[in-house]
């Protein structure tokens, strides 16, 4: 039955996490924006709370399938959780001790043994290299089998939480001449000899999040730490499938990343409506845009864009929960949420004028933070490319 409201259990989790975001994250937003790279110790409490399920996941898995077998599971829950926490602060959310994008990858494609072994780890994701941004099929970090170990060599950049995490999921190629099919992901524990954090980036936004450059120099890891199959497919079908397996991670991670934009934009909208409310502008959701003041019309438009993006995110997550292939929808929601978040946060600064531009409020920070959400986990343009290829039935050689 068509129903686009969250289940009671998920709504409760969302509400609880919004409280956490308001009281345990937001108060430190400005502090860690200023003190780039310093460890947000105040978040340890939040992380503990999340891990213990307090406030958050207590009722999470409990949304039972209905009579038709429809499920509201981990994917829908995670987009709600990301939205709620990013309403607090996206930079801090990305810095949550114990939680990283690598965990999602391990949980999505790991064997039961791997999931068990690394369930308590704080895993970051190492994909991008200095010479390859969106072109992740072209990475040149290598992994060579030597006895019972893989030996990894190469350099990775833009590793979110790369400084603070304890585990890395690293994309590397077994044989660059074999293209995409030879790209595999490997679990590397920090502290393994040869693995070194070489630099932390200075950024425009999400400054609380430590974005690291990490080098691998003859870094030896156990053979069992490869995620997925060791074999390199030789036929076209197999090659496609192999890289597809790696890319499949994105179907699970893009909706939550899109949800970061939903939370950040909601924060900006709430703050803007509060500020202009003090100046006597209230929204009635009544007048047609054309009969409203330009300010009201713009706020209505932003609310509408926000709602549309949020529903696309929920749809993609719902599909994942119900085992429906959602590659296109994951990219659709990431594209829409990414551009919506950037548009809304920037516009909120403009509408509040000098109040918005000032560091006295967080609006200017939201506007700096939002930009990266339209870039990481696949840029706006990469998402459009994926959606377009699916819609038009085009291969990557036809539609470049």
């Amino acid at each position: 039955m068509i129903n686009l409201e969250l289940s009671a259990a998920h709504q409760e989790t969302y509400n609880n996490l919004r409280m956490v975001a308001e009281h345990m994250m937001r108060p430190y937003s400005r502090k860690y924006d200023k003190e780039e790279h310093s460890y947000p110790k105040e978040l340890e409490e939040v992380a503990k709370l999340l891990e213990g399920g307090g406030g958050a996941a207590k009722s999470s898995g409990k949304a039972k399938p209905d009579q038709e077998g429809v499920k509201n599971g981990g994917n829908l829950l995670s987009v709600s959780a990301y939205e709620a926490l990013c309403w607090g602060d996206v930079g801090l959310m990305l810095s949550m001790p114990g939680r990283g994008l690598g965990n999602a990858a391990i949980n999505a494609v790991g064997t039961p043994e791997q999931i068990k072994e690394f369930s308590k780890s704080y895993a970051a994701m190492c994909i991008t290299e200095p010479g390859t941004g969106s072109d992740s099929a072209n990475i040149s970090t290598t992994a060579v089998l030597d006895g019972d170990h893989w030996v990894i060599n190469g350099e990775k950049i833009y590793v979110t939480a790369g400084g603070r995490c304890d585990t890395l999921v690293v994309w590397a190629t077994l044989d660059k001449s074999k293209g995409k099919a030879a790209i595999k992901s490997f679990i590397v524990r920090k502290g393994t000899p040869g693995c070194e954090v070489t630099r932390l980036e200075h950024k425009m936004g999400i400054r609380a999040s430590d974005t690291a450059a990490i080098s691998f120099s003859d870094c030896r890891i156990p053979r069992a730490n490869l995620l997925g199959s060791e074999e390199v497919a030789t036929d076209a079908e197999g090659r496609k499938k192999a890289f597809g397996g790696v890319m499949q991670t994105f179907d699970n991670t893009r909706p939550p990343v899109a949800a970061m934009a939903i939370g950040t934009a909601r924060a900006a909208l709430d703050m803007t409506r509060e500020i202009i409310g003090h100046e006597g502008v209230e929204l009635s959701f009544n007048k047609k845009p054309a009969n409203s003041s330009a300010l009201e019309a713009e706020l209505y438009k932003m609310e509408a864009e926000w709602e549309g993006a949020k529903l696309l995110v929920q749809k993609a997550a719902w599909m994942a929960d119900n085992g429906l292939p959602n590659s296109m929808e994951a990219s659709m929601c990431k594209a829409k949420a990414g551009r919506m978040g950037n548009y809304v946060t920037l516009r909120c600064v403009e509408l509040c004028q000098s109040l918005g531009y000032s560091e006295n409020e967080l609006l200017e920070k939201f506007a700096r933070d939002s930009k990266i959400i339209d870039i990481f986990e696949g840029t706006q343009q990469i998402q459009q490319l994926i959606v377009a290829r699916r819609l038009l039935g085009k291969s990557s050689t036809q539609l470049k």
Partner: protein
Amino acid sequence: MSNAAQQLFDLTPTDEQRMNRDTMQRFAAAEMRAQAKVADASHSTPDGFYDKSAELGLALLPIPEALGGAGVGHAPIANTLIIEDLAHGDMGLALGAISPLAFVNTVLDQGSDAQREHYLPRFCSGEFVPATTALIEAKATFDPSQLATTATRNAQGFSITGSKSMVPLGLDAELLLLIAELEGAGPAAFIVEGTPAGMTRSEEANMGLCTLQVASLQFDQMQLPASALLGDEEFDLQRFLDLSRIGICALAVGTCQAILEYVTEYVNEREAFGEPISHRQSVAFMVADIAIELEAMRLMTWRAASRAEQGLEFHQQAYLAKTFCGEHAMKIGTDGVQLLGGHGFCREHPVEMWYRHLRAIAILDGVASV
């Protein structure tokens, strides 16, 4: 209906809704899309279209079985899906075909028992009953809360003066739900039967919706009996507007879906510089964005409809859906023409007609109530 709080997020139509969609989609393809271009060019509805549409039984769906209807009751989601699927055939014809349903829905929603019993059995005969709703007035800054059409009470009932524009089926409507300002009481709705003295109808010519007969109506001291006032209580204009906005959004969704499918096929077939134009990002990304915004339009419309169906507050969702559809449907309309270039500008292809239809989305109000 089970408690909303127990429900899960779900985008699966019920089996009944799915079967209904098949029927609507087949009808839309055979009786609407195939006829629309000729009808648009000649500014006329295809012969026998409304009689055929009556076979779908749309207007009798919500009517209680006791009055001869199908007894489905208030079903905004089912109505939304019906409108979406019919608009995929043609937006103008869809608006005409569902105008009686909008009338019935509003009488069921806000009418008195006596009015339901008096007016609704007519819709259960299997024949098309031209009935419609009239809200819009010809004014650049038209605002539904500031109506210039006024009703004053008198000994015989009400005297109404003013005018309405963009009334679907306005020339032939035998039953009309007329929204006017009741002096001293606020907005009210009146059921007008036939053409009472003081009422005149004139055909409109608009940039689009030419497959549908749209009319302006003038009222010069038109006298209505006291029983014409809809409902026993104050007319809830906001609720009427919100339910209408959901229907108007569904019109936009169906039309934009037609555009998406049409341009997808076209850009793959059309070659330039030695390959299909879909191999160019500037073209392909435009198609991708059409799909993305269209899906957001659909989900927003469904959410408002689903909240209405569950008895949840849905005003804000309906407003936002209409705001979003008003803007993005037109963008999709103009991109649809753009993707076909000069060919899109010529009437050989339907995209220019959809462009003209879609300009109405942001303007329409008080029609297509679900």
